[in-house]
């Protein structure tokens, strides 16, 4: 983001700051917060039976006539040029339809990089794809083969001979720090933020902790591989994809291939895990381009190794956190700065300092992120980008301070948790982090903790308990549209392009629509995953539920008006205005006199209408600018560390969450648990082995890249305050990413409590816990 954008967003903020809260959306809380029936109830996922029976068709399974298959060649060198390219053997191999290289790839522009101002800007990279002989990173796509079968394509790929001349590459984080860039902003926030003179306050503080924390690169490992099926029908383009950005993909592809938006349709009814990795990458663009070249549908499924090669993951980071505290344990200074990778052709800034701005009060602050430029596959968003690793650093540091001062780590936090946003001063819309800590500590049995590290033992195992706080911002994206169709039989269909990645998008919105429209659950159908439906934004930033809900609210209001008009003078609700009625019991009723009720069925029947359709967009998410809105958490961990081997075994994990209304306890618990399991990986096992000599990822497989196995995952307890947020649709905030947030530090702090060893670089592998 440029300085100009920064200024624009800054001034919008300022203007909104003057608007009275009551004028803003959410000024009077969503009435459904009080009046919920289906919302908040346990409901199984609507897509569950389809998946269990195998009827759900994922992008690699869609039956398509005359399908051809593609495979990719990845560069084994990191920087350089293709000097010799021999595709003769591949061209002649059985079943090969076409070999594509930069020589014959149609000329294409590049994607607009992901930006916060244009929702169809979704490029993770703006490097040209198969346009020239230049190699920019190890694993880059340098050729593709299209063949009659996948096996033929895979084989032909092995026959392509390429000679490269290697050029010097930037692959060493430590060296590249010297030329790191300091961006003006991080996402939509100013990057370098100072409140007071934090360095001076720090140096004068009674107590100081000042350390550097390191986190390694991570790779995306969604169970479903990235896969795309592209076909041209006349001038129209149909793409079966697995994507967390259905409508934006269609818009971006239309732009890139010079088509009208209506000519492109992207279908993605099911996504087998996204986590930030299922965006727009090179493979979709190659598939679309070659499908046109061969005049046939093309399917391109990345291998697991391929995912590591061309789908970016989480950047490594080096973070300094310095905290000063006065004698009473109140923070006087909080400094959080550091380095992470973002190549100039990439777009994801890994906002690790943003979470740290929102939890604790301090007399002074300084936040600053620097981008290190390496020749690598561009890093991207990965569940709680920024917060997941930022909280590791800050929440470890808070624990270090508590230990240094001999204060209980929860008391230390309680004394410093802010009552308003610590940096902007904005009021929190709703904030019960303290309660989350109190409730969680009680359920977890925090009082069993022994403060002196290394005090508890069972046989060779030292036992420790730790905790950490987490914070993840609420977001509701602009540009969410939905269509509601009321049918003559009194049922309704809700449609939008939203994405179902297994978290229960449809399930929860059906619950919502049932309450919003006053219909039973069974009367609602939800259509999604199709870019021809009214566009909704990407699923990212834990924002989809609120974004779609906001649009349903707007559409339901419009529907109410339309139905009142249609009801006419003979209706029991005749003469009432939209503000005087609500949708309930399958129709419209007067709020003042509920006996005045007219059913949807009879209104439509009287008007001789089969149905009524409205489309509406959610209001601008102004609440985000007026209020500080954050989901927060208190994470607790109990674990054992072997005195013999240094192995860590986590015995218990508890997450206590404050995320507004919990719309469906079952799907929410899965989101929380899944996030926490990913947090265990971050804490203990996950690390992309990036060989700094070559710039190559060496553990590009699930055997060598260690995600937690079942045996690594203990019983995970989750609980929540369930206090509605008066400023958001349904009172809900995001829950998809808060689960991973804080887990790294909770584990590290428990390890410290068990052993007295402070590990400041993840993952906490056993060698770091052995005596030197």
């Amino acid at each position, binding site marked *: 983001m440029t300085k100009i954008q920064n200024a624009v967003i800054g001034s919008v903020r300022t203007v909104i700051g003057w608007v009275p809260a009551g004028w803003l959306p959410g000024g009077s809380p969503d009435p459904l917060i009080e009046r919920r029936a289906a919302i908040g109830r346990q409901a199984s996922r609507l897509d569950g039976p389809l998946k269990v029976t195998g009827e759900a068709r994922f992008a690699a399974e869609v039956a398509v006539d005359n399908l051809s298959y593609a495979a990719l060649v990845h560069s084994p060198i990191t920087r350089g040029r293709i000097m010799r390219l021999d595709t003769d053997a591949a061209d002649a191999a059985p079943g090969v339809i076409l070999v594509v290289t930069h020589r014959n790839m149609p000329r294409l522009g590049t994607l607009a990089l992901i930006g916060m101002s244009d929702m169809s800007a979704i490029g993770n990279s703006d490097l040209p794809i198969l346009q020239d002989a230049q190699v920019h990173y190890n694993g880059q796509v340098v050729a593709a083969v299209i063949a009659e079968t996948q096996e033929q394509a895979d084989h032909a790929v092995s026959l392509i001979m390429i000679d490269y001349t290697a050029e010097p590459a930037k692959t060493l984080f430590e060296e590249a720090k010297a030329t790191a860039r300091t961006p003006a902003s991080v996402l939509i926030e100013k990057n370098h933020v100072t409140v007071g003179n934090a360095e001076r306050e720090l140096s004068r503080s009674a107590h100081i902790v000042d350390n550097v924390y390191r986190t390694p690169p991570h790779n995306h490992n969604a169970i479903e591989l990235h896969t795309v099926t592209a076909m041209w029908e006349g001038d129209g383009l149909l793409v079966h994809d697995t994507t967390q950005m259905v409508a934006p993909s269609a818009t971006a592809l239309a732009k890139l291939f010079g088509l009208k938006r209506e000519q492109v349709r992207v279908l993605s009814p099911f996504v087998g895990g996204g986590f930030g990795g299922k965006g727009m990458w090179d493979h979709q663009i190659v598939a679309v381009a070659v499908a046109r070249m061969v005049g046939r549908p093309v399917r391109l499924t990345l291998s697991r190794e391929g995912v590591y090669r061309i789908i970016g993951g989480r950047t490594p980071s080096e973070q300094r956190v310095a905290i000063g505290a006065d004698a009473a344990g109140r923070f006087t200074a909080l400094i959080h700065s550091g380095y992470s990778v973002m190549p100039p052709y990439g777009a994801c800034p890994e906002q690790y300092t943003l979470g740290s701005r929102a939890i604790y009060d301090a007399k002074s602050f300084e936040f600053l992120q620097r981008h290190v430029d390496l020749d690598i596959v561009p890093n991207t968003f990965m569940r709680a980008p920024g917060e997941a690793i930022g909280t590791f650093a800050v929440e470890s540091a808070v624990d270090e301070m508590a230990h240094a001062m001999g204060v209980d780590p929860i008391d230390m936090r309680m004394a410093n948790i802010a009552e308003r946003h610590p940096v902007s001063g904005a009021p929190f819309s709703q904030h019960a982090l303290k309660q989350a800590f109190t409730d969680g500590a009680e359920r977890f049995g925090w009082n069993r903790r022994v403060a002196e590290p290394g005090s508890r033992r069972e046989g060779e195992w030292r036992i420790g308990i730790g905790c950490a706080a987490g914070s993840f911002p609420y977001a509701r994206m602009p540009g969410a549209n939905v269509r509601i169709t009321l049918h003559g039989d009194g049922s309704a269909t809700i449609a939008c392009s939203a994405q179902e990645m297994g978290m229960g998008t449809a399930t929860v919105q059906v619950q919502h629509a049932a309450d919003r429209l006053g219909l039973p659950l069974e009367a609602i159908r939800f259509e999604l995953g199709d870019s021809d439906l009214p566009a909704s934004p990407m699923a990212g930033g834990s924002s989809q539920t609120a974004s779609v809900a906001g649009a349903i609210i707007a559409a339901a209001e419009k529907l109410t008006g339309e139905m009142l008009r249609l009801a006419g003078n003979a209706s029991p609700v005749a003469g009432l205005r939209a503000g005087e009625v609500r949708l309930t019991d399958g129709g419209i009723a007067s709020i003042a006199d509920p006996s005045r009720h007219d059913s949807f069925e009879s209104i439509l029947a009287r008007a001789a209408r089969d149905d009524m359709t409205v489309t509406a967009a959610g209001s601008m998410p102004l609440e985000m600018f007026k209020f500080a809105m954050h989901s927060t958490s208190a994470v607790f961990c109990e674990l054992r560390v072997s005195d013999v081997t240094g192995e860590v075994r986590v015995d218990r994990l508890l997450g206590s969450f404050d995320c507004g209304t919990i719309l469906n306890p079952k799907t929410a618990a899965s989101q929380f648990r899944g996030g926490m399991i990913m947090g265990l990986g971050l804490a203990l096992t996950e690390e992309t082995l990036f060989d700094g*000599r070559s710039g*190559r990822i060496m553990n590009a497989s699930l055997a060598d890249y260690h995600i937690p196995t079942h*045996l*690594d995952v203990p019983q995970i307890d989750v609980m929540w305050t369930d206090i509605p947020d008066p400023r958001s649709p349904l009172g809900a905030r995001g829950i998809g990413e808060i689960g991973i947030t804080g887990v790294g530090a909770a584990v590290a702090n428990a390890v410290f409590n068990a052993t007295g060893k402070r590990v400041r670089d993840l993952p906490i592998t056993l060698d770091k816990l052995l005596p030197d």
Partner: protein
Amino acid sequence: MNPISYSRAASVADALHMAGGQGARLLGGGTNLVDLMRKGVDTPSQLVDVTALPDGIDRAEDGGLIIGAAARNSAVAAHPLVRSGYPMLARAILAAASAQVRNMATVGGNVMQRTRCLYFNDVAGARCNKRVPGSGCDAIGGFNRYHAILGGSDACIATHPSDMCVALAALDGQVHIAGPAGERTVPLVAFHRLPGERPDIETVLDPTEIVVAITLPPSPFAARSAYRKVRDRASYAFALVSVAVGLTMREDRVDAISVAFGGIAPKPWRAARIEDALRGASLSPSAIEKAFEAEFADATLLPGNGFKRGLAKRTLSAMLTELGGPAQ
């Protein structure tokens, strides 16, 4: 297409007849070989399926055990004779891979499995003397967390990744080999070679030969034995260090002892020096320490794997101390 012929041997003679040609490979469960073929590390032209060869697990004439090379890893681990007479072997197998892999993997394939060295497995991007003799070894200056501290060479420091073989080494397993010239038997500890200048030659097995069985003599260690595997996650990871120990005690002194390590050497590492030093000794911390130093004195420690020396020592000490205590 790389044409591959596939045939299934009905007998050992059959297998010997089919195998041995250029490009021929024996196929057990395929859990290792098929992966290597997918990655282009191995490019056979002929597969001879040996899973129909003897897979029995039976008591041998000497009271020991004979295991057919085609026996599945899971069948061995579950067998009553193994569980009662050689519990360390059952535990070693169950510490390996996943249930699905163990159900497929054969004993012959397990003994013959290749290293998990990341550079060996990366045809497109790495140099490896084992894969391409003379090309260099990228592991030495690279990621070598899983690599050897004993028995490696300047050419190669890859480890043999098997858990089962560590127990077999400690249990004095014998490898029964059939070849065109007849049968021969090699102790498991002499079956795998150290890399020296030729890391590409991993065992004493001639390409014309096949492994037909493993035998174990009666073991005195059933009552006091253990296999402990130390790894980067609780399951489904290769050993950083693993230790197999069998003991018998007379009074409070060691009578018989067997110690083998995995994860630290190019082959299952039978620690004869430790055994010699401890035989007849009492298991005091200083005696264990001295014995360990005798074995690991010339360990070569790299930045990525240097921790294994201390880890091996601590693991061994803890196991000996526990096993040497009053019998359960």
